[in-house]
């Protein structure tokens, strides 16, 4: 009845090929850094979040059917909470959003610290559940899509 917990992930981790997330996982992730909410196609209910990290542009498509009416602020930072699905066309992933909140103005460095603090703690505790970092190392590498 209750959905699965949505573990925090950074946008660049939301990628089936690294194994950090699996299809069907509930995640929450945030578009951040320089390019944020890049585009929104209301007819297709699709939004695109983007992030610059390690000199690469990462993008995630977000299905916004559950969170409409959605008032997009292009260029603002968003946090999305939803289920991972394979994107249409077979490349990359899509997040089927249950929650899409604008968090423009968030202190991203601090947010990353917070998430890492939580992950470090779980790692210390020696658990793999709820800890994306160890899950990534423990998971079998998947063939790139």
């Amino acid at each position, binding site marked *: 009845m209750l959905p699965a917990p949505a573990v925090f992930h950074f946008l660049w981790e939301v990628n089936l090929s690294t194994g950090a997330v699996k299809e069907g996982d509930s995640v929450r992730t945030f578009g951040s850094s320089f390019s944020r909410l890049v585009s929104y196609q209301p007819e297709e209910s699709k939004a695109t979040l983007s992030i610059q990290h390690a000199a690469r542009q990462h993008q995630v498509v977000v299905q916004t059917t559950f969170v409409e009416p959605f008032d997009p602020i292009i260029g603002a930072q968003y946090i999305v909470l939803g289920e991972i699905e394979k994107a249409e066309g077979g490349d990359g992933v899509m997040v089927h959003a249950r929650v899409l909140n604008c968090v423009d103005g968030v202190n991203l460095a601090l947010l990353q*610290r917070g998430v890492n603090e939580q992950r470090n*703690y779980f790692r210390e505790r020696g658990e793999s559940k709820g800890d994306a970092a160890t899950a990534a190392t423990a998971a079998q590498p998947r063939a790139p899509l």
Partner: protein
Amino acid sequence: MQPEATEPEEDSVWEEPPSMLWGLDPMFNAFNRLYVKDILHMRESCQVSGIYFYNSHPIFKVDVLGTVVYKREREDFFCYGVDDGTGVINSLCWKDEQWREQGDPATLWARSFGSSTCEDFNPASELKKLRQAQHSSSHLEIGELLRVRGPVKTSRQQREIMASTYYKVSDPVMAVQISWMMEVPQLYRQCYDKPFHLDSSAQNIQGGSASYLLGRATRILKDFLKEKEVTRFRPYDVQDLLQPLVSRQSQKTASEQEPEAGPSSGPPTSFKQLRELLQKSLQILQDEGLVFRKVKCQDEVYHVTERDKDLLMAVRDILREDCRREKYAEKGCHILHILSSVRQRYSRNVSKAALVLVLKALECNSDIISTSDSHYTIL
């Protein structure tokens, strides 16, 4: 009672601290900021339902901050599913009666002040604003941030939080969530993950540990008498049941006691303790009426009240005969009258508590019926 090395996850080794000592743990009285994952997995206490254990700490209340991912509304309450990133838990949030609209006395009273000449303060509009603020604070939609504090309950095999306080948190730049994420691991490291150690002074509090031990001993005896459907027994027959309690106790206290002149710990002391424990437990069972000694003599024989057929028949016969008499025909016999008759006819040592149990048993069997609080008659 408290093992030296606490391994709370090993059920076979770890024993709960006695409930009397839970108040010594500050976590018992605090709203603990546990991760939802831990709240869902903590084990329930065997002594008191509604109290849970995380890493040997007794937990009663929790404090959770998370996103609402599920909402169910009824007339009296909300049920919000709260997701903090590690787990999702339901929280039952009762609506506040006094902020309901229309027709409540406060509104009518306030409206009567509506035409007041004072311009600065208009009770009606202030009350309206207050009501709106209360409404927006408690009505949340999916995606909003909720803070919940309250005791944990297990209902229908699902854990949920019965919110004593809940409110919507306005967190536009995630500052609250970030500080929560930074703070909670610290709390875990400093408090929650440190095991609950009872220092030796607490363990030597004779009152606490002794009454706990006695409670357990009487429980063991009661269960034994019930399971084995015992009608009569001698102390010797049940002595061995209490042996494990005493040997554990003497191990503990021996390791912590300072060396003193007198009998050292070993078989003689533990046997004496066993006899003492047994005597005290049997006394409690007698006081409660569960057992009685029909004849007080050298041979200590205890009768289990509810299984003593002779006693039940005796009481029934008393009622049958006496209720024929005019004096008792209408109202029945008073319990004290029955008691004195039983003591004359059957045994001097039947206590009132024992008689109450007998009368209850007879009434359940539909042999007799109570005509008032303390009168009984034959059927």
